Structures are given as C-alpha cells and as structure tokens.
C-alpha cells in the first residue's frame, strides 16, 4: 500500500490540488498559524514593540497570576459573560426560530426584523443601547420610574452590568436564528406525520421529535456562540471601558489595552493571549465532552 505506484494522472491531480490549496494554505499559515505560534513565543519575552525583545522566561506568567490587578477579575467577567450570553441567546433564538417557523402572518417581515440587528454596525447598536440603559435620562429607566419603580444602574452597577451587556448580545443573535430556522426546516415531516397518527400532541412531538433532531444544530450554535462570546470585546470598548471597577474588563479587552493603548506591553499581552487560548480550549473541550450525552445524529446507528 505504502509503495503504491502513482499514475501520471494521479500525480497531476495531486499537483493541481496543491496549487489550488496554496493560496488558502499560505493565507492560513501567514495570518493565523505563524502569528499564533508567535504569540506563544512572545509570551516569554519582555517586549514593548519598540525596543529589542528580551527573554524573561516565565516572568510574564508569574506576574499575571500573582500580581496583575486585572487578571482574575477579567477571567471571571469573561466566563460569566459567556455563560449568560450563550444560554440566553440559544434559548431566545430557538424560541424565535420555532415561532418564525410556524405559519405566522407577515413571517418574512418578522424574519427580517429579528435578523436586522445582526447586520447593523456594532458602534451604532451599542450607542443606541447606551441611551436605553442610561441611568439619568435613559428610556428604560424612564419606563421603570413611570411604573413606580426606582431607577436601575444598568451599566454603572458591577452586579448588573454583565447581564445588561449579555442582553445586547442576545438581541444581536440573528445569525443563530437563521441557522436554527434552517435546522427546523430539515426536521423530516414524516416523523411528525407518523407521530400525529400515533396520537402524539404538539408538545410531545416537540420534545420527542423536533428537539432530538435539532441537537446537532444546537450544539453547533452553542459552540460558535461560546467561542465568540468568550472573545467579547466591543461592549467594553464602546460602552464601559472595562468598568465599573474591572467588572467588564474582558480578556480580549485586557489584551488590547496592554498591547495597543500605546504602553505596548506586547510580550505581556501575548502571555495573556496564551492563557486565554488555553481557557477557550478548555471550555470548548468541555462542550465537546458533554456532547455525546445529548447530541443525536440521525441515522447514526450504523
């Protein structure tokens, strides 16, 4: 097998394949894998981007876990945000997708409405929400005081700010809705028809047919939204500057601040990025490990 003689055509095809793959391979290695590797290497250097890098061993990592004023707050905030945002957006977009999959009036219009936030410029979205959330003159607090409640510090209270930001992410989950809708339309009708004949009601059909058929899609959506939520950056950049306190100093934002707000602690920021990479890896692995208990693939019994 190993010494199978290749035909001329076979060789030609292999070459064609390599040539076709070359641009994407080059692109991937130049802008993804080599920088990724560089980040891990740079984590062991003291480098401000201007002077020559100086090898410092594990010093960056030691400082990170012993002295850094942000690191633990930052990990906590990031994980907290990701959990709330992922669970919130999966539930919200699943419900919306199920509703939009029914024969509701003006369905096309509502599909557009729920997808629209996703295509709006992020800056505009967050600016708009900052006015809704404003403590002194904001619309939500206006409604609350009109209803007789006392004002809520949506963005100023460290205990509330993360759920407030996660809510914006939930509102922005139009892409998940689209994927769910596609999944729902792929649930085979014959299962539903068979169950209907057997006398199953709508609720039973949902739990016994729709949900199991949807689990691969839910898994995919969870994975994608988990990774993107862990990398959350824009809300702290536009709305909170990482505050109040350190409650929204998410890891991506922390890396950005150390690396690029002119202080240029690039080596140190790389060390954080390396740790961050491991954290994302752990959460992704956990999700994958649990998947075999709840994800069902149709026709997977062979």
């Amino acid at each position, binding site marked *: 097998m190993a010494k199978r003689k290749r035909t001329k055509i076979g060789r030609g095809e292999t070459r064609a394949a390599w040539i076709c793959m070359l641009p994407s391979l080059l692109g991937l290695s130049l802008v993804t894998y080599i920088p990724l590797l560089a980040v891990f290497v740079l984590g062991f250097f003291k480098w401000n981007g201007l002077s020559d890098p100086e090898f410092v061993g594990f010093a960056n990592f030691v400082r990170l876990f012993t002295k850094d*004023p942000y690191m633990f707050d930052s990990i906590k905030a990031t994980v907290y945000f990701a959990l709330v945002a992922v669970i919130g957006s999966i539930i919200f977009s699943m419900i919306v997708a199920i509703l939009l999959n029914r024969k509701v009036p003006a369905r096309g219009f509502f599909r557009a409405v729920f997808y629209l936030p996703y295509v709006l410029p992020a800056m505009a979205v967050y600016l708009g929400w900052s006015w809704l959330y404003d*403590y002194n003159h904001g619309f939500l607090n206006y409604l609350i005081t009109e209803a007789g409640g006392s004002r809520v*510090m949506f963005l100023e209270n460290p205990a509330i700010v993360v759920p407030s930001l996660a809510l914006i992410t939930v509102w922005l989950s139009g892409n998940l809705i689209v994927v769910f809708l596609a999944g729902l339309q792929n649930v085979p009708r014959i299962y539903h028809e068979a169950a209907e004949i057997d006398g199953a009601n709508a609720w039973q059909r949902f739990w016994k047919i729709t949900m199991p058929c949807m689990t691969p899609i839910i898994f995919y959506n969870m994975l994608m939204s988990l990774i993107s939520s862990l990398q959350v950056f824009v809300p702290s950049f536009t709305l909170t500057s990482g505050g*109040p306190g350190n409650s929204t100093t998410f890891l991506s934002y922390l890396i950005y601040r150390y*690396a*690029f707000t*002119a202080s240029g602690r690039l080596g140190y920021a790389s060390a954080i990025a390396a740790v961050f990479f491991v954290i994302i890896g752990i959460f992704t692995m956990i999700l994958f490990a649990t998947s075999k208990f709840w994800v069902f693939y149709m026709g997977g019994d062979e």
Partner: protein
Amino acid sequence: MKKLLAMLLCIAMVLTLGSALAEDGKVHITYSYWGTPEEAAATQAVIDTYNASQDGVVVELETIPNEQYTATLQSRAIAGTLPDCGIMNENGVLDFAANGLLADVSGMYEGKDSQPLEAVTFKEGGTTPVAYSGCAETLILYYNKDMFDAAGIAYPPSKVEDAWSWDEFIDVAKQLTIDVNGKHPTEEGFDPDNITQYGCVVDNWTWQLEVWAHSNGGRWFSEDGTECVINSPETIESIQKVADLTLVEHVQPLYLGLADEGIIRSVASGTVAMATGGAWNMGTCMSTSGINFGIGVLPYMKEKVTLTTAGPQVVFSQSKHLKEAMDFIAWYTQEENSWNLIETGVWMPLLQKYYEEGEAMDTWLKDEDFPVKDYDMAKSVLVDYTNAAATPTCWYYTPHTSEFIDMLRSVLSPVWTGEQTAEQAINDNFDALAETITDF
C-alpha cells in the same frame, strides 16, 4: 511552481524599478496619517499645495487605519522603516520618545514669525521638546443660556479674574437643579431620585479629572514625569469634591466616567445647565445641538487652571531627512491649512500669535463661521484664559499614561457611586497605579 516564483520575482522587480524611477533628484519624505477617506483627500490636497510650492522636497501621504495606527508604527519602528513624520496619539508620544524614536524638535520653528504654545509642547524628562501638538485645546465651561434666564441667574463668568470658586459654582448649580416637583436641593422635600434638570456636569471622563488636581494644588505626576503623586491629600480631595457633586450636593447626574460623552449627555442634550468640556465641543456638538449656549471659564478650587491637549505632529528620529521633515511639519501645521477646523471651533490655533491681540486673533474669533458670536466672550475664554491658566495634560511629560488612566478609571468607579471614598480607592490601589508608568 517555478513559474509562479519567477512571476512573483518579476513583479517584485517591476515594483522596485518603479520606485527607483521616482528618484528625480528631489528629497522624498513620507507623512503618516489616519482618518477617513474624505479626510485623507483633504490632507492630500494640502500636501499637493506644499509639493507644488517648492521643488526640493516631495511629500508622500501614507494613510494607516486609526485602529492599527500605533501597532503599525510599533512594528515599523522595529523594522527601521518608520515614516519620516506623521501624527500620533497624545498618550503614545513619551513612550516613543523614551525609546529614542522621536527627533528633538527644538529647532523646528526657528526663524518663523511665531512659536507654538508652550502648553502643547511634549517634553521628554520635562525638558527636551520631542513634539508639538498640531493645534491646541483647553477645557472650558459650557452652559445653557435659556436655563439661566429661566432661573433669573447671571451667566457664568467668562473672565478668568471673575472665575467662580468651587462653592460659588455649587451654589449656582443648586439653583439650577430641579426635581419633579419643581424643588431645588436647598428646599425641604427635595426628591434626589427624581431630578428633571441637573445644575452641572463636571466631566469625570478620567483624563479630564487631572485639571481638578492642579486646581486644588495637587498633581498626578511629578514635573519630570517619573513619579506618580496621585496619593497626595490635595489630589485625593479634588477627586472627592467632584464625586460629592452627585453624592452630597445632588446637582450632578451620576456618571462613572466610562465613556467620553459628558457634554453630549448634558448641555448638548438640554438636560443639564452647565458642563465642563473640551473647547473642541464647540464645533463637534454644541454648534449643531440647537442649544442657546455660552462658554465660560472653569470654576476653581485653589488655583485657576485649565488643561491643554491636542494631537501631536512628530518627526521620527529614524528619518534620513530630519530637516526636510521638520520644515514640512512646521509648514503643515500652519493654521491656514486647517482653517475649516479652526473656524468651526473644532480646533484652537497652535501658534502664539493667535493668542495676542491683533490681526491673527481677529481672523480667528471674528470668522463668520465661528460658533461663538460674542467676540469678548470668545476672547476671554479662549485667549486670555489659555494665556493665564493653561497647564499641559500629564501625557505631555509622562510615559505610559494611557495605562495609568485606564486603571484609574476602574479604581474610581466605586468612588462615583459612593461605595468608597477617594482616599480609600486611591490608597488601596496606589502601588498598582504607580507601577503603570514603569517598565515591567
């Protein structure tokens, strides 16, 4: 594969040939810049004028997107391929200077009819000038004339000698703060949770707080920018006084200084009577807000002070054409080249001659597009106040200030909400704050 390589090589050759052909006996220098395509087009037009005005030097514009600007300069500094000159972020200048990347610009305006304002000169170690700002900006007080008229109160002073003391300022703010029942904070039954009009906003967007440290006789950093002194009693008190406007006096809405929008949320949106802000706000939001506004000098605690800041124009020391680059920057920063920004109130002029009575000052303040129509008011607040009270922001002499300011912002959050006093917050975090301006 070989063919591909050969093709790439050919392309590379053509490209190098192209630049070799550009050798026309003139000195070529590059000027780096960020901005939208429209702004780049305007900048290019100014540069074209320069290139046409003399035949020794050709300036080429290089546009780098804003969000990648600092990172790009950093990587090019390593590679030794920095542009000859360009703009920078205020808070990156001293970091670049500390690495020897900026040229000493003390001779840049030699022989010119006017020098840049002293207060917008970046100085390494507090002495060597390494850059000048491309314009000037100060902090001033904005107010809503209609709210003052409705309350029958005299407008805030525009002359520095008449500046309100902190207590006078609070008194006026109280008279202009109204709750849902029409009551003021001085009256029985005032409801601080249902305020419909606030008296003031002293912007706590973090870097602007430094003005109150100076005003109260304190500082954030020593004059040579090597030591952090934000834990001095005067400085701590200055922060507490700003926080107390909300917590104790109930004349200021609650802000945590998390975003740069104090003026937009206050005077410009018609919800607050007075607010501190940068002079640029005249052009960026007040002139289009529809508010009948006036400008005045800041109140003061002990000293009458305003902060100055503005984006720097630098010459990189790696340049082989330092003299040409400096000549270009000195020409480029002439007010005439950015007049549309100056006449609309977004920029204040750079050169001292605009801050002396005479023709230059009048062309500026009497321009028909200038947003403040009251000449005496504009002269008092923008000229006399600048001459009498301008102090440079810490990034004119201290490195790593952006990291310091980011940390200070998070440290002060509980101070604005009243969970901690300024003294607790600063003292608990002083070591970490002081460490930000060092190398670790």
